[in-house]
């Protein structure tokens, strides 16, 4: 495995919700132009960790976050850095497809609008984002149709297009396929593998086969801690920690 430069990292990360500590002294690194999978049993803190990077906890008053989060050299929690800038550079795709209750076109246009992308550049960007997310052929004739009329898989690809349109550097995905049928899942997986050429991708998944199919690196978490991180092949076939071995073999989860 070649050693790619680190794009995104968190060190000494601790997160509490109220008095409950959810993440404990976590250190993770996500290499550039690679897909990194976050795996671990439900409730171990994968989503919490993912959402710390694009500062999704900013609005929950009972969340307390410690540690250093770096996007290359940029400290993501630096005073004076606007959170909207962080989220433009770090896009996110959610577990349940959540298109805006607007037209397909407007779903992507909205992000461009609030990020002050000039009007005359928008339709080209929208078209490219839809093509990049392999949904263009399916929707090009009905861009004004409400996005909520699309199938679940199409909606999720639209959400990926919405993220991609802003040219983020990193895309965080929180179980993007968990609500989808096998065929849609396959399409999204292909898409993810293609997207890593231009983006750094961190994906939470419960699907062990999926992690092995698409991830270059895998991070195994358990009860708020990172137990083991490394090349996907190593994690699945030659784990150092017994816990990791038991989990990837499906003995618990």
């Amino acid at each position, binding site marked *: 495995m070649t050693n790619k430069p680190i794009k995104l990292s968190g060190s000494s990360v601790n997160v509490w919700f109220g008095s409950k500590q959810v993440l404990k002294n976590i250190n993770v690194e996500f290499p550039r132009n690679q897909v990194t999978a976050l795996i671990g049993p439900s409730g171990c803190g994968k989503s919490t960790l993912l959402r710390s990077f*694009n500062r*999704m906890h900013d*609005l929950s*008053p009972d969340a307390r976050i410690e540690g250093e989060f770096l996007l290359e050299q940029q400290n993501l929690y630096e005073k004076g850095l606007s959170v*909207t*800038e962080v*989220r*433009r550079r770090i*896009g*996110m795709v*959610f*577990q*349940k497809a*959540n*298109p*805006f*209750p*607007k*037209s397909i076109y407007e779903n992507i246009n*909205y*992000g461009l609008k*609030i*990020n002050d992308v000039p009007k005359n550049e928008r339709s080209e960007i929208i078209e490219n984002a839809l093509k990049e997310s392999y949904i263009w052929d399916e929707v090009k004739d009905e861009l004004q149709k*409400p996005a*909520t009329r699309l199938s679940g898989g199409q909606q999720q690809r639209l*959400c990926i297009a*919405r*993220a991609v349109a*802003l040219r983020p550097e990193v895309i965080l995905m929180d179980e993007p396929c968990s609500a989808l049928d096998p065929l849609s899942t396959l399409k999204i997986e292909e898409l993810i593998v293609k997207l890593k050429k231009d983006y750094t991708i961190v994906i939470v998944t419960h699907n062990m086969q999926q992690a092995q199919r698409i991830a270059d690196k895998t991070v195994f978490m358990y009860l708020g801690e990172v137990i083991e991180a490394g090349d996907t092949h190593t994690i699945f076939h030659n784990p150092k920690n017994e816990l990791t071995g038991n989990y990837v073999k499906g003995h618990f989860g």
Partner: protein
Amino acid sequence: MMRKITPVIEWGTLLLSTGMVCFFMVVILWDLISKGAPSLSWEFVSTLPRAGMTKGGILPAIIGTVLLTMITALVSVPFGISCAIYLNEYATDNWLTRTIRASIRNLSGVPSIIYGLFGLALFVQGLQMGTSMLSAGFTLGLLSLPYVIITTEEALRRIPASTREAALAVGATQFESIRDVVMPTALPGILTGVVLTLSRAAGETAPILFTGVAFYINNPAGFLNQEFMALPYHLYMLSTQHQAIEQVRPLAYGTALVLIIVVFLLNLTAFYIRYKHSKND
């Protein structure tokens, strides 16, 4: 055997309850329409009352109720919606918020006649606005405020966190996510609450009793600083206080029917707006 019978009983009970509700609605509407329709005419809705209310129309009362409802909306809707947005989107869950919420719920349970007395003390006397359309409208606005807040907050609460996060994740500020995504999504629910509240306010008598309504006005209707006529009060007077009750009974039914129609039109407007919005989701 039991397995087969139980669903029939459950189903039958539900059907019976639904049937009873519909039955009474139909009876009331039928009674109203059959007795009120004969007095409906263009003259009835477009002219002033004559001959001590025994003849002529109810135009001033229609104008009064429509204007009054508009003032009520102008007072309660902007403040109510802003307040609900603050409570549901911005306020943290602490004792102050909980106290405010509990107060609003209590206010919604205060009998409307108390609002009438409050309006008399505050607007009519305290602020020297006299018995007038404005005093009555403000009073009804206050009465409606808690309902608008509660229904709006409920509509906002039904919007899942993932919808808000979708906007935040593409770089919207919290305000932008509320303005561009949360509010448009919640709008049908909010509108339903607003319309129900306003229809209720349009039919209120007690709060306007001391604050500006009159049985008869000499001057043209529509002046905000004057006393005014209103449909529910007109109906009340015609059916209980008039010296020739039997003679004006058809007019009373006509008035009731017009009041129902005004409320129905209000609902229709909301229905139309909801329909237009539903095409987009």
